């Protein structure tokens, strides 16, 4: 029998607060014409504004939702309402075999899963026009190389004229270069340049921050020039940084790491016109960290069934690299709500060492997962830090808005904390308190 998530966890699945609220409004028996459930699924018919009731269904192994309503949110309020009702009052659901409309969907899902499993084989079976492909690849690499040569000249001009002059440049100075990199099919490099655009106006210390970025970009260009001579994982890193994408099907066909993964934190950020959701996992037996990235454009909703504060039996495939963190979920079971116990760094000094180790393998590292065993959240001269018994400190990110909550959890005692470290600031994403794990994810507005 599939586990039923708790109310908090169901609400965490909501794409936005509006859907969560509307879902709660629908979580009462009176709103539903029929309600049924089996071992693995729940379904119901909800009378909405249309002439026929909406058919809502949940595959509890997942969970996965489907509804006949026109809403583009996922899960929609009906799906959430149905699940909340199930969690609250399972008694009002009649047990039985699913009706045809549910059975068909479930069968379709099962089929698709089989298909995914055999995707690798079919991919291999597909006849490929190798010549045409080789030609395409060669063309692209030529494009990229030409673009990077141009970028090299641009970088030289920049440091020749001095950053003082660069500070006076308009935003388009950076944006135009980024666009040229997109044209040269090096979107990853474009992203690195866009990240620099705001630094000159970011206040004290901007010169050092910008110089560090310029250095890293230069390092990427230099290494890429002699990529053939480098070990394979490094090649993979460089290509990913430049913007060559790797086929997810191909990756998923490879072998994954099966483990019981603790879902520790989640964070949504804007990047260009996209929203990126980072979810951090931690393997409870392998001790490995994994980062799952999901993207959504515009009003599109990030469909994520990775819920912070749960444990997940899953097989995960890492992108190749010298310090592999980014990964894809190959297959997963129903998440289980349990405080994820992990082995954190005992001291901040130890965490620093681990970060340094990762940096030597992969100097372009942007976020590093840090779990700290015992730190005190504190306010010093209006700034928030965490420090350990030894007196070492990590400043907290200015993007972190739940400082007072974090303080409330500590009560002046040391707490265990999980967060992202970018080399300068820590962004806490979860805290362990009295045998519980509480995700510190601010609601996206």
């Amino acid at each position, binding site marked *: *029998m599939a586990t039923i998530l708790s109310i908090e966890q169901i609400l965490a699945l909501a794409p936005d607060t509006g859907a969560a609220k509307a879902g*709660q409004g629908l979580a009462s028996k009176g709103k539903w014409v029929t309600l049924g459930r089996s071992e693995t699924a729940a379904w119901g018919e909800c009378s909405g504004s249309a002439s026929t009731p909406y058919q809502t269904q949940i595959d509890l192994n997942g969970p996965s939702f489907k509804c006949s309503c026109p809403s583009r949110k996922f899960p929609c309020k009906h799906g959430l309402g149905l699940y909340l009702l199930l969690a609250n009052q399972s008694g009002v659901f009649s047990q039985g075999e699913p009706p045809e409309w549910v059975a068909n969907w479930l069968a379709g899902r099962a089929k698709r899963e089989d298909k995914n499993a055999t995707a690798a084989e079919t991919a291999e079976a597909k006849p490929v026009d190798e010549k045409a492909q080789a030609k395409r690849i060669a063309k692209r690499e030529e494009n990229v190389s030409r673009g990077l040569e141009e970028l090299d000249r641009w970088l030289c001009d920049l440091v020749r004229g001095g950053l003082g002059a660069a500070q006076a440049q308009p935003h388009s100075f950076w944006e135009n270069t980024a666009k040229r990199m997109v044209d040269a099919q090096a979107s990853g490099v474009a992203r690195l340049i866009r990240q620099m655009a705001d630094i000159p106006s970011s206040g004290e210390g901007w010169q050092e921050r910008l110089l560090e970025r310029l*250095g890293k970009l230069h390092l990427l260009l230099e290494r890429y020039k002699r990529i053939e001579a480098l070990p394979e994982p490094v090649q993979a890193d460089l290509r990913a940084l430049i913007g060559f994408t790797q086929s997810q099907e191909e990756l998923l066909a490879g072998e994954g790491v099966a483990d019981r993964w603790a879902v520790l934190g989640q964070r949504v950020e804007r990047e260009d016109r996209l929203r990126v959701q980072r979810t951090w996992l931690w393997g409870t037996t392998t001790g490995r960290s994994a980062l799952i990235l999901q993207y959504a454009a515009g009003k599109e909703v990030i469909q994520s069934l990775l819920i912070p504060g749960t444990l997940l039996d899953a097989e995960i495939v890492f992108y190749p690299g010298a310090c592999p963190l980014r990964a894809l979920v190959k297959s997963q079971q129903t998440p289980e709500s349990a405080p994820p116990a992990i082995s954190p760094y005992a001291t901040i000094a130890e965490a620093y060492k681990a970060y340094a180790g990762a940096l030597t393998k992969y100097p372009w590292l942007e976020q590093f997962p840090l779990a700290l065993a015992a730190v005190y959240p504190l306010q010093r001269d209006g700034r928030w830090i965490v420090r350990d018994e030894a007196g070492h*400190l990590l400043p907290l990110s200015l993007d972190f808005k739940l400082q007072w909550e974090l303080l409330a959890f500590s009560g*002046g005692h040391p707490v265990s904390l999980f967060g992202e470290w970018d080399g300068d600031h820590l962004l806490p994403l979860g805290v362990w308190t009295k045998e519980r794990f509480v995700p510190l994810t601010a609601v996206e507005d």
Partner: protein
Amino acid sequence: MDVWERLVATTMLGTERQPVDLAADGPLGAVLAKLEGLDEEHKLLGAAAAVSLYRRVGSSPATDAGELPDPVQEEPLHPCPPRAREQLAVMLTGQQNELLPEWLDLLAQSGASLPEEALLAMLNLGNLRPVAAAMAGAWMQWLARKNPDWFFITNADVPDDIAWESAILKRIALLIALRRQDRAQARTFLADVWDTTDVVMREILLAMLAIGMRKDDEPFLESALDDKWKEVRSTAADLLARLPHSHLIQRMRERLEPLLAYTPAQPACPSSPSIMSQACLNVTLPMACDKSMQRDGIQVKVPANLKHHLRNTGQKAWWLLQMVSYIPPGEWCARWGQSPDELIKLVHGHEWQDVFQNGWVQATMRFRDQEWARALWPLVLARQTALGSWTALMALLPPAELEEMTIKALQGRQENQDVLPPLLDLLRFYPCPWSRQLAFVVRKRLQELLASPDTFKENNRSGNGELLDVCLYYFPICAPVELLHEMATMLQPAEQQIPESPYQEYRSKMFKKTTSRL
């Protein structure tokens, strides 16, 4: 200037104005030496990459010279039960938050603390801040001391910059702070701002008088009974009802006097004194709900949300019910010389059974009468009364009794399924950690459940299957720590041999979950 500072300076000016100086000691110097021979721009960029990475990798964390924080003393209150925490989280999202004050009240009565994640939300909860203030535990006091905005929690002096006419919240904050320092002055403040406040504000401010309420608050509350807004009147009536010996209670007594006639049991006829007639209670329903009754908080109509539950209670009976709820229940015992149990028996099957049962339940919660709570408890637990929350009554019972009751329920051998739901609720909402004895009994019951193959035929939402789940779930949370290891040893063999059933997979997960928490 070290090599990094020189690089930054050169970058600012531009390599056309200042050449790059790569002199550095040690291994870094050796790395940088390799850049010699390149043009100035590439020299600079290459050095920037090498030096910044070198600095990052070789750096150690900054240090904090300040004092470590003064930790809060352990909360004397016990932690909020998980189920209640979930309810609170839902309410704080704005759903059903009208229940929040009542929920907080229940929490306070049960002696549990607010969960930490809710503290902030409570401190910033606008209208409900006062409620938060009234029940601030050690943890919240500690937190509030860290932020001057929360002075109203800490009894600190009222900051000077708060003007009388400033924002609503500050008014509330001020009133609470004042109320704690000087109750009379707080009343004067309330009277001063009274005319310029609207209905919502009046209701909230008035409710603050509950903090340290005493007899001298009565005149003000009485005057509020004449307020033009119904909400304000009913808040005042509610407060007066909680004030011992208030005139409002006295008026209720006088209204009830002609309506209830109690005749004790007496010899049926003088010749045979051993045959007693039954005691009886004659009831006359009130004919009208006049202005003065309404002034004292009697609602004319049954509220819509109670209509369904009180469907056997007409409008006049509803008036009577409310009047009964305003009388401390112990008074009936004293007056008629009967115990609560005897009185409950007396109205059993009575035409107005619902009126008395519900009225007494309300009164018991209002006046926090332990003896009555004990007597009414079975009725409420069996869900026989419409009003009253049994978790509130539970909190009125002494822990020892509650424990005894729970143990009895656990040892109950009846196959009667009716006893199960109350037992489940007892375990789920048990307001304090389990004693060793209780934990032993739970363990015994668990052993029996595990030994019975029938248990595993049921799913987790019914019968013994549910009981198994509840026991497994709460044991690691509630039982004394020293028993946990033993429990884990006991569960291990059971986990290996979960009998085959449709729920096998679920059960094995449940076991794993429990053992992992043990």
